């Protein structure tokens, strides 16, 4: 037998076709890709089913305005879900923040309140949401209460407090200037609500993707033990994340107040489900470690598009819930499937 010199095995990973394939693989396996594809299919379908009616400019702005509070809450929820947590309290914290701000308006000029009062009231609303979030964060991070239960308790507390403050009926005293400016006002022809929610989305999208805060959020959701050993103060970070979710609910509360001109205390029982659905549709994993603001943005608009499309094509709009539910279940199933696949490696 002759000994033949075997050529050295060169890993071909660095070659150009392999790189292209890797990028393609990552694109195809990215959750956002599928979510975006679903949104595109919806848009194409409804546009062809009702040409000239679906996605007119007024449609888009109406959808975006209606979605603005959801979008803002979904941003906070994205951070929470990436840490492998969940925040069920959002719709109720929205109401509580609006109620606390509304109470302040009532004692400071009511419907004729000036700009200064509106600013102070809005800040009080934001602070209320943030404080509620901190409280829930402490329950989760310090007392180790599972997020589902901690925020369920927070949900109950926020609802009870809202009813106690208002006596069970909506506060009628929302400043007219708040409604006319933030609620209905426009800049360059675009509603302030839309501008505000998109700027917030952009800001937190950048924070999640490019800063240490975002990196630690992923790390904690991915492996809290590893994060602890790396010297990350996991408990403090979790409190900040829940505070952010509360703050976003507070912001949504002010937006809600401005848009509807009422505290709408019984109008948000299912906001949490809408928001969580959006985040999960957007590719975030309930097991933590995965998710993006871009995905959440798309996820927020899928049910809204669907609803608008169903109305325009004169299909019973209640199909919206059923379809969204089915898509949600499919999204979570795919996530689990992918996770199992990875763990087998």
């Amino acid at each position, binding site marked *: 037998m002759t000994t033949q010199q075997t050529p050295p095995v060169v*890993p071909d*990973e660095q070659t150009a076709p392999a790189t292209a394939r*890797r990028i393609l693989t*990552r694109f195809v396996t990215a959750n956002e890709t599928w979510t975006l594809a679903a949104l595109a299919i919806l848009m194409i379908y409804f546009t062809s089913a009702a040409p000239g009616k679906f996605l007119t400019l007024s449609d888009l702005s109406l959808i975006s305005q209606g979605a603005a509070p959801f979008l803002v809450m979904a941003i906070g929820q994205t951070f929470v879900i990436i840490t492998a947590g969940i925040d069920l309290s959002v719709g109720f914290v929205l109401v509580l923040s609006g109620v606390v701000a509304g109470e302040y308006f009532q004692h400071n000029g009511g419907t004729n309140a000036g700009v200064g009062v509106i600013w102070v009231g809005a800040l009080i609303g934001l602070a209320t949401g943030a404080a509620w979030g901190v409280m829930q964060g402490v329950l989760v991070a310090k007392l180790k209460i599972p997020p589902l239960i901690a925020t369920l308790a927070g949900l109950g507390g926020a609802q009870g407090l809202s009813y106690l403050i208002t006596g069970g009926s909506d506060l009628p005293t929302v400043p007219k200037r708040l409604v006319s400016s933030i609620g209905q006002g426009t800049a360059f022809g675009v509603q302030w609500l839309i501008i505000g929610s998109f700027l917030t989305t952009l800001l937190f999208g950048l924070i999640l993707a*490019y*800063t*240490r*805060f975002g*990196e630690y959020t*992923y*790390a904690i*959701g*991915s*492996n809290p*033990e*590893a*994060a602890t*050993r*790396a*010297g*990350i103060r996991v408990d403090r970070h979790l409190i900040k994340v829940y505070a952010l979710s509360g703050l976003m609910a507070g912001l949504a509360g002010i937006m809600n107040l401005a848009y509807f001109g009422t505290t709408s205390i019984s109008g948000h029982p299912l906001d949490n489900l809408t928001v969580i659905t959006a985040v999960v549709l957007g590719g975030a994993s309930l097991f933590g*470690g*995965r998710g993006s603001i871009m995905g959440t943005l798309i996820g927020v608009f899928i049910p809204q598009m669907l609803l608008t499309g169903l109305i325009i094509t004169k299909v019973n709009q209640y199909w919206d819930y059923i379809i969204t539910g089915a898509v949600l279940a499919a999204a979570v199933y795919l996530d689990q499937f992918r996770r199992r696949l*990875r763990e087998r*490696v």
Partner: protein
Amino acid sequence: MTSPAAEAAAAGPGKSGAALLEARGIVKRYGHVQALDGASFTVYPGEVVALIGDNGAGKSTFTKVLSGVIRPDGGQILVNGEQVQLSGPVDARKHGIETVYQDLALAPDLDAAANLYLGRELYLIPALKVLNRKEMRRRAVTAFAQLGIQLPDVAAPVGALSGGQRQSVAVARAVAFASKVIFMDEPTAALGVVQRERVLDTIRRVREQGISVVLISHNMPEVLAVADRVEVLRMGRRVARYRASDTSIEELVGAMTGALAAEDDAA
């Protein structure tokens, strides 16, 4: 018990000079269980020292004490001859001590570079804590290359890598930030033959960089292949110390199981 003076007199066979890291008479109890019963341990500069012992001998507890994860109930820890308090992993890290854990403390959803720098990120805009991913990746590639580690893609999530590659990332992470000592708790336990060789090779390269390695293992051939010295732990105490070149598997097993007389019991 031996006095500290007698301990010092019985310093590691063959190794001269001052100890880099030394533990004396460490005690740790869990309820009624005496996990560490006056355990001692010495690490000299630039060596690979194996800490061996049977299951339940206290290796894991001892490693955790020495890396600051748990606090001992008694005893002293000295770094460069000075007594220190290790009240957390961050404390240990400040003294140049890093640990590679058996269960791979990596975040599977983050890429290799992000894992390498987790907790010690590099920033593009420090004031806003904006990360410098490009620089972290660039340095990660260099760090992996120095240890002979080949990864298909430093930007791929660590969860997508093989077990050996993940272990390499964990080792590289420790190497990148340790200045004195790295503890490796069963670094090859979950690996195949080829990957095992690679990790052992990595351990040798770490020593070449002037960092001491403490290898916790109960794989005797592996220990003799890579270690300069061996210290044996049994029932929470150090019972023997050997030069790897002067001992055999039989002798090590004898010390581990108690067939040989215990060093610290001698006095």
